[in-house]
């Protein structure tokens, strides 16, 4: 009975999830992105994934094998039933006046191209089969399951990012031959998909076979392996724009910018524990200072070169950070977050207002900012600017890394854990906090400075709260207090959405969900710093007995 209820609830929950994806417009948008050209698109893949996952979850701890299969089937059927219901409702009731995504195209997709009646049946059947398959997959041999998942994931990646991958393998000869075997210019070929599936699945099988032969990596080895993969990732980051051209250069430029800012906020939030949402304020200060100092338009002040303007912009940002930091020294925790949020909004409104327009250009912003140049070599293209950003990010990373284990870094960590105890132990609260604000602002200002010269113009609309949220989200997803985490977070949260352009509008939906999910299940982030994950696990271990004592 309990198994049955659990399977039913799981099915209904997944069904609701599917209905949500459909109504919010994501399914229809995914449908436009093919995985295997002419055969499978991302929308169908997501539907299949939902059914499989539903079956697998419903079948978890359901006892004997046949009971698991039954649970998976039931879950899948129920989820399919909800989706089928949605399809029939969309077909019969004109919903589009309210839900803009409830279009005939969506109905058509949910009915697999059939009429409403047969379509509903097909969805129900599909859900059942998917759920059953998920349950079977869940009880199958782990290595086999892993191989199938790896193969499918490889196909999805190869299909979804086909444009980018094809761009990078524009060569003749053997590579050209492989490319033509796997891809047409429109997307993945079925034969290519099969080949990729077999290769990735096979590799996974072989690897899991070898690791099951009694070989457990020691922590030391694991760390070394991590550093090697980080090095490889960095190398790819450095070489990629050379291989893939201007568009990727632009995307990477943005990623680099956010890495830079992430490093700065990481010092404030990750190390010093000051949750700063006014990051965008100092980003704006840096950008506007650079713009005003460099701009050739009538609003420009000094027409300096970039190398003169940038240090001034960073200094002005630091000054701003310290000036704001002084009064808010005593504001703690959540209150600080809201106070800094207020600051960010104030800066945005002031920049936009008529009051500041004579100085800052109002809504039109500051135009005509020249590109930086070294001697007569102008850093004009995004790729060249990317390298500038990368160098800055490298310097920032070095500073952050050296600070982490310095006296100051330790003081910050003490501050983060308990302000009062830290102060009692002799940490100079005022100096450490002001340094944190100042350094955070410096990184933000540097980011803003690069941003200004990258765009060649600065508008108030570029300085939304969303920038602060972007930076915060990327260090949380990557792992608070972890430098490689910042890089990973920036690639995942800034780079990916740029590559999946058509999902741009759904980016913040994804961010919101990512923040909730990360905080709930992986608060230490994808690439946690060692200290932090140890802390969190220790805290979880202690919390359990307390929770057990709690009534209700």
């Amino acid at each position, binding site marked *: 009975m309990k198994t049955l209820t659990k399977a039913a609830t799981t099915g209904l929950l997944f069904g609701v999830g599917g209905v949500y994806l459909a*109504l*919010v*417009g*994501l399914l229809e948008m995914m449908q436009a992105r093919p995985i295997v050209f002419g055969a499978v698109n991302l929308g169908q893949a997501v539907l299949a994934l939902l059914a499989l996952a539903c079956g697998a979850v419903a079948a978890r701890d359901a006892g004997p094998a046949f009971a698991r299969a039954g649970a998976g089937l039931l879950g899948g059927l129920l989820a399919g039933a909800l989706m089928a219901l949605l399809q029939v409702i969309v077909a019969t009731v004109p919903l589009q006046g*309210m*839900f*803009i*995504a409830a279009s005939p195209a969506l109905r058509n997709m949910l009915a697999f191209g059939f009429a409403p009646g047969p379509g509903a049946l097909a969805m129900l059947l599909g859900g059942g089969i998917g759920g059953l398959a998920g349950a079977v997959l869940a009880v199958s041999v782990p290595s086999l399951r892993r191989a199938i998942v790896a193969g499918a994931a490889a196909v999805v990646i190869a299909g979804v990012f086909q444009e980018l991958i094809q761009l990078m393998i524009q060569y003749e000869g053997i590579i050209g031959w492989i490319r033509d075997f796997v891809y047409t210019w429109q997307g993945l070929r079925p034969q290519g998909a099969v080949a990729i599936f077999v290769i990735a699945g096979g590799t996974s099988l072989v690897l899991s076979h070898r690791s099951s032969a009694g070989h457990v990596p020691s922590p030391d080895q694991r760390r070394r392996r991590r550093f090697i993969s980080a090095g490889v990732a960095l190398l790819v980051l450095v070489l990629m724009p050379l291989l893939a051209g201007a568009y990727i250069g632009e995307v990477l430029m943005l990623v680099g910018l956010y890495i830079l800012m992430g490093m700065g906020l990481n010092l404030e939030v990750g190390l010093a*524990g000051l*949750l700063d949402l006014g990051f965008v304020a100092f980003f704006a200060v840096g950008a506007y200072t650079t713009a005003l100092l460099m701009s050739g338009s009538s609003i420009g002040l000094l027409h300096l070169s970039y190398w003169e303007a940038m240090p001034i912009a960073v200094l002005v940002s630091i000054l701003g950070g310290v000036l704001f930091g*002084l*009064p*808010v*020294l*005593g*504001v*703690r*925790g*959540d*209150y*600080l*977050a*809201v*106070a800094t*949020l*207020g*600051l960010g*909004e*104030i800066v945005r*409104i*002031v920049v*936009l*207002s*008529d*009051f500041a327009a004579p100085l800052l250009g109002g809504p039109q912003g500051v135009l005509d900012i020249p590109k930086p140049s070294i001697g007569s070599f102008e850093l004009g293209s995004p790729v060249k600017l990317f390298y500038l950003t990368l160098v800055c990010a490298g310097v920032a990373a070095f500073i952050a890394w050296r600070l982490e284990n310095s006296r100051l870094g330790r003081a910050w960590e003490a501050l983060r854990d308990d302000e009062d105890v830290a*102060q009692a132990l002799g940490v100079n*609260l*005022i100096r450490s906090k002001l340094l944190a604000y100042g350094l955070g602002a410096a990184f933000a200002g540097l980011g803003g400075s690069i941003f200004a010269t990258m765009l060649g113009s600065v508008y108030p609309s570029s300085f939304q709260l969303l920038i602060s*949220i972007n930076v*915060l989200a990327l260090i*949380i997803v990557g792992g608070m207090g972890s430098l490689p985490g910042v890089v990973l977070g920036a690639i995942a949260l800034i780079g990916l959405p740029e590559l999946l352009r058509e999902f741009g*509008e*759904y980016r*913040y*939906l994804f*961010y*919101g*969900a*990512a*923040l*909730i999910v990360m*905080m*709930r299940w992986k*608060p230490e982030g994808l690439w946690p710093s060692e200290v932090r994950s140890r802390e969190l696990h220790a805290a979880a271990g202690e*919390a359990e007995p*307390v*929770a057990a004592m*709690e*009534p*209700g």
Partner: protein
Amino acid sequence: MSAGPLAIPSVAARRGAARMSAVSLALWTVRFLVVALVVAGTIGTILKDRYTTAQWFEFVLFGLTIGSLYAQVALGYTMVYGVLRLINFAHGDIMMCGAFAGYFVATPLENSGFLEVHPVLGMAAILAAGMVVSGVIAVLTERIAYRPFRRVQGFAPLICAFGVSFFLEQTFRGLFGSSVKSYPAPKWEGVEFHWAGLSVPGVDLLVIVLAVAFMAVLYLIVQKTRMGMAMRAVSEDGEAAALMGVDVGKVIVFTFALGGAMAGIAGVFYAFLFKQVYFYMGFTPGIKAFGGAVLGGIGSVPGAMLGGFFLGLVESVGPSLFLDGIGIKAPYELRDVIAYTLMILVLVFRPQGILGEHMAKKRA
């Protein structure tokens, strides 16, 4: 020397006068600048004499109207903060949900002519929709996003609340589109009352009276019912309340439902006043209402009402009173700056607010 910013200069004082003077100098400079600005601006405005009495009356009335909405939203912040010690950052978006629900009821009612003929019934239906939808969504967010964090210290709950805020906004954008929807304007709401040369728009009056009535009901619920008593007990001391047999989980759910319903009403009124419904509409009023809640003393129900009204008044009267006098162009553009500045000043100088003396000790 109990709370917040005061603690730092006092500790620093023991360690060295030089450092103390740097921080308190900064604080005193800020105090002085703000007071100087307000005084200079006020004198300047009075000397200029640009606005008529009727205009001032209009500013005050609008301030009270918008303040009544801030007060309603602030109640949700303050109650949730009381029982969970959590800033429910998504509360402004819960208000937005209520506005959307009201919109989807109001539009067909207006199109069919029902709202013109039966204003009371129609308004009741719209308000009910807003209340129910916002209440349900608030309870759902608690169940899904906040419940796992009940015993977690640090940033996790607040960051999760940001996530919820984004998720709600973007969900509504995805479901109903990103365009600004115009709220129906029934003819009866154009009524104006005239008295002693001053004109009072009927909508403002309606919003203020209804908001005050709803807040009175909420106050009675908190003060007189068993559940309200349990709520107050939990905000006083959650563990002790649990030991006395209060079902803390139920109280929390009830708090979210109550705060959500109140925000739903505020959302309907907000849309009613500004005639616009869009997915991002909850953000700014949400932050400001939080400012109001802190101003009144977070955790205090009367404080939230007071703080909300005060914030509304300052925001509405402030641009003309303080900013115009010192020669700032288009001061009305900067009204949000006044609201946010007020909020930051409260957070810096009086985090315990006007009425929240006892809460502040636990906070700091």
